[in-house]
């Protein structure tokens, strides 16, 4: 018993640097952000005075009334939705083709995955040049020029400089979504491919012999088996999209009328550009809760399975 006790102490001692730093850097700082979001530190002078004037949830209420933040929430919703759908559709399609081991499949697989190794900052820089190079013009050249040269003028439009809006969806986001899908669809492909390789081929052959079409094999066999993997991919991608700060920052910024703004960009500007510390912290906490809503049910579920 004594020995056991000593062992626990040694274990704790090994873990203690991690426990202490994470306690401060994760739990301490989140608590501090919550605290600041409840104060009225929205000017530099009130921040310097460090007055503890609690204003309750006023910063949050103000935030949800603001046009910019409302736009941000719509943008996040649509960006996340289309980003995930795009990555799933392309990733699954490619994994199904590559799972048949076509000649040169390995080459294509590696090619589709390389954007995963690149920074969002690089992705943003390149795609900005592709869609609307130079100082933002009224009529972005770039890929429009390519369409013109190929005689495909119908595909020309304003890309991320466009202020068009459809049911709350700022169509300028399409350009950002293309860049994000370019970077992450290889990820879904790799996840699906890893899963497909584990499926017993006899199962599929048997179904084919029984007359199932390829589409039926996909919807009735493959998709149900791959559901947990698909779910994991969705969680990770949703998580990525909430963090797409670097991509937006490098590619478009907030854009005209905040058409490509997201809460993470607003948080950064409020905190570090305009000294609205309480508003910035409130946005940060809203972001944290959005991630929580997404992650906690998933984690509870996977711990139960374990």
């Amino acid at each position, binding site marked *: 018993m004594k020995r056991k006790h000593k*062992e*626990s102490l*040694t*274990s704790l001692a090994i*873990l203690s*640097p*991690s*426990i202490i730093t*994470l306690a*401060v*850097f*994760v739990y*301490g*700082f*989140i608590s501090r*952000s919550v605290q*600041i979001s409840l104060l009225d530190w929205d000017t530099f002078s009130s921040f310097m005075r460090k007055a503890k004037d609690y204003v309750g949830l006023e910063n949050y209420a103000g935030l949800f009334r603001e046009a910019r933040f409302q736009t941000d929430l719509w943008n996040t919703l649509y960006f996340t939705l289309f980003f995930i759908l795009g990555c799933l559709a392309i990733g699954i399609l490619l994994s199904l083709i590559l799972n048949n081991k*076509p000649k040169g499949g390995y080459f*294509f697989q590696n090619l*589709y*995955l*390389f954007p*995963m*190794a*690149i*920074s*969002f*900052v*690089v*992705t943003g*820089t390149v795609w900005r*040049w*592709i869609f609307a190079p130079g100082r933002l013009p009224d009529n972005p050249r770039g890929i429009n*020029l390519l369409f013109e*040269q190929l005689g495909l003028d119908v595909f020309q439009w304003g890309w991320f400089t466009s202020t068009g809006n459809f049911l709350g969806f700022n169509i300028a986001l399409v350009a950002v979504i293309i860049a994000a899908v*370019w970077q992450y669809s*290889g*990820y879904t492909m*790799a*996840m699906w491919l*890893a899963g497909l390789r584990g499926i017993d081929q006899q199962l599929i052959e048997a179904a*084919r012999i029984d007359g199932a079409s390829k589409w039926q094999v996909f919807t009735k066999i493959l998709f149900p088996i791959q559901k947990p993997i698909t779910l*994991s991919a969705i969680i990770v991608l949703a998580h990525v999209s*909430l*963090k797409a*700060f*670097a991509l937006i*920052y*490098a590619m478009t910024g907030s854009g005209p009328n905040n058409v490509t703004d997201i*809460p*993470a960009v607003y*948080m*950064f500007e409020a905190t*570090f550009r305009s000294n609205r510390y309480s508003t*910035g912290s409130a946005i*940060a*906490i809203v*972001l*944290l809760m959005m*991630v929580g809503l997404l992650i906690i049910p998933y984690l509870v579920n996977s711990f139960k399975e374990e």
Partner: protein
Amino acid sequence: MDEKMTTQEKIIRYAILIAFAIFFLIPMYVLLSTSLKSFSEVSINTMWQLPDSLSFEGFREAFTKLAPNVLNSFYLVIPATLLSAIMGSMNGYVLSHWKFKGSDTLFALILFGMFIPYQSVLFPLVQFMQTIGLYGSIPGLILVHVVYGLPITTLMFRNYYQDVPEALTEAAKVDGANIFSIYRHIFFPISIPSFVVVFIWQFTNIWNEFLFAVSLTDTQSQPITVALTNLAGSQVVEWNVQMSGAIITALPTLLVYIIFGRYFIKGMLAGSVKG
């Protein structure tokens, strides 16, 4: 194993594969062709054309501007990767083979740090770094990346060590080995593949990271990702320089991917799927 496919089906499959290959390569084409043009040749009107003659003007200038930042990134990434991997390995070892009352809860609490959006700690973090005098320095950024890297590295090593039979630890204990010697002689040597995966994962993530880098550094200590976005901020955007800069930024992690692709994919899957 392959089903019999008609020629038509084969053609469709390859058409899809090639179409996507083009989509994935467009940015690479633009990057390379623009970066190899001279400043006088860079024009929006010819952006889709290959350069008339190869010019390394853009690369030369980008490298002159970015060399200090490339060094900063290496000074940051190497220690941060090593430290977070070693600490994660020790944590994972203890949390899988030296469990104690409450250790599973502790693991869950550590893991939580992996899922938070870093905005939720950002402002207090900046203030804290200013207070302890590490704001605007590479050591400060190393500390931040080690701490926020711990949840994922701990998870990866714990999952790896969990497959090592408990009997092995028990037998070593009977022979009088202690917690440290068992790690050094048994667990550390068998976890080299796992270290490779974690190294690559951390190297790529920390090299590519932007939010902490932009919030916690000054002009002296900026890593390459921040310096690249600042290249765009100057009055006349020299696109050949900027595209060269983007290539310089992407090159180290791309090389890692090309050389260690298999481990990279392992890390990517391990980072997202449990077990």
